């Protein structure tokens, strides 16, 4: 698995798309840091954009990479390597490469502008952290969908739909439910709704690092209390981990049973 991971990562990191991805985020970060006097608000703007784009690009990239690699997957399948190791290696190779891209894209401008000591290092690292987690999660979901669907168009469509679901449809349903049940105490529902969607959870984790977190106080003290204790953090991290582990198990199971 190590070898597969290593070379997949080489391959991805060197592709022009990965380079474009890194440069894009570096430029974006630089622009926000230059345009806005307030680094706090640059981080919020960056968060808004990355929480849309990182899952989307991770999804698209993983699907495309998988379908392209079908051409040479037989070469690898013919080697004395277990299928599980092969596909997990490939998945981790893609996801890790994308994670490296995003980490570089976001962090390099921060260090160039010498903001390491600005007191915002914690929120910046949180931003990078949640984006890395989202990269692994959405790559895993997309990779699983691609592995599950031989038909490229269908696989691509489903993967995009999964992204659309988590970034738009889920929130639509969520807000609809909140509106319906607004006569009832909704704090716990609001909390649950934020925890089950990895994008929402990432956004909340990010907001909790900023002053703006006080606005979450509108839902009662539930959020501050929940994330103020280690139980809340453990639960939040467990949810993120589940979003990562479940597709991974799917990848393993699917890779064992399908024909190539």
């Amino acid at each position, binding site marked *: 698995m190590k070898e597969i991971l290593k070379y997949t990562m*080489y391959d991805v990191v060197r592709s022009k798309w990965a380079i474009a991805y890194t440069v894009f985020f570096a430029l974006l970060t630089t622009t926000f840091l230059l345009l806005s006097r307030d680094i706090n608000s640059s981080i919020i703007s960056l968060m808004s954009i990355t929480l849309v784009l990182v899952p989307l690009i991770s999804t698209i990239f993983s699907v495309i990479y998988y379908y392209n690699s079908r051409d*040479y997957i037989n*070469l690898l399948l*013919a*080697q*004395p390597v277990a299928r599980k190791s092969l596909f997990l290696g490939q998945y981790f190779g893609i996801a890790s490469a994308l994670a490296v891209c995003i980490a570089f894209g976001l962090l390099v401008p921060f260090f160039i502008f010498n903001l390491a000591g600005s007191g915002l290092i914690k929120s910046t690292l949180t931003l990078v952290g949640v984006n890395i987690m989202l990269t692994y999660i959405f790559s895993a979901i997309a990779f699983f969908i691609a592995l599950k669907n031989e038909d490229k168009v269908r696989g691509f469509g489903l993967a995009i739909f999964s992204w659309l679901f988590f970034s738009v449809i889920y929130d639509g349903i969520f807000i609809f439910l909140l509106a319906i049940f607004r006569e009832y105490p909704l704090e716990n529902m609001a909390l649950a709704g934020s925890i089950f969607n990895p994008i929402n959870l990432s956004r909340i984790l990010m907001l909790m690092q900023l002053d703006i977190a006080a606005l979450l106080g509108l839902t009662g003290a539930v959020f501050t209390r929940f994330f103020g204790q280690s139980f809340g953090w453990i639960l939040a991290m467990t949810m993120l981990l589940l979003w990562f582990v479940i597709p991974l198990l799917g990848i393993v199971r699917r890779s064992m049973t399908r*024909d190539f």
Partner: protein
Amino acid sequence: MIRIENVSKSFGKNQVLNGISLDMNEPGVTAILGPNGSGKTTLIKCLMGMVLPDGGEIRFKGDHIRGKHLYRRDIGYLPQIARFPDNLKVKELITWIANVRQQPDQRDKFVEAFGVSGILDQTLGTLSGGTRQKINLILAMMHDSPVLVFDEPTVGLDPVAMVMLKNLIAEEKRNGKIILISTHIMDFVEQVADRIVYLLDGDIYYDGTIPDLKEKYGKSSLEKVIVSILSQSVEEVSEPTNGMATHPKVFI
């Protein structure tokens, strides 16, 4: 060495292999022939563990291969399509496969033989189809595996490389290897193969040596034999049979 017993496989409603049995124990070249869709590639993929048979079993050196992967240390495989990760360099790909296999290799010998030492630093995405096929062959042969499985090895090769390939196969045969080749090029088969396995609609239609086959059909060349088998089977298929949708089985 290799024992395939009653292996069957269908993709959806499409029955591709109909309980095929085949043994390969002697050194030498076995050519798998058959029209498009006759199951050549599927049979090879079953052997390589890429396609999981619905029924029957495959043993390699006496052990079942299902769910195993280490037996592939003894097989050098040439995939049908020569495609690689676009952004890797040729030498990186070779190193990669070598690292994955962790076996001694003779890459220099084959790089030299196929005359690709000048392009080792190019990325794979920039190579022509023929060049890629050469790389493909190097990857399949460089580990000196006792069994070689070639799926369409001649695709895209220039005449010089073709001669090279024939010589290499001949050499490997002399070294006592078991070599399995699927191909459409009858010329090539006639020159290298010792044994012919002819697949038709998921069954083994013929299994024997080339001289026997020529004699049986009374033809002077293998190509003519094939044409005669095919026209015969087409006639049989086109004949109205009592509700039998599948091709009637012909055993030799």
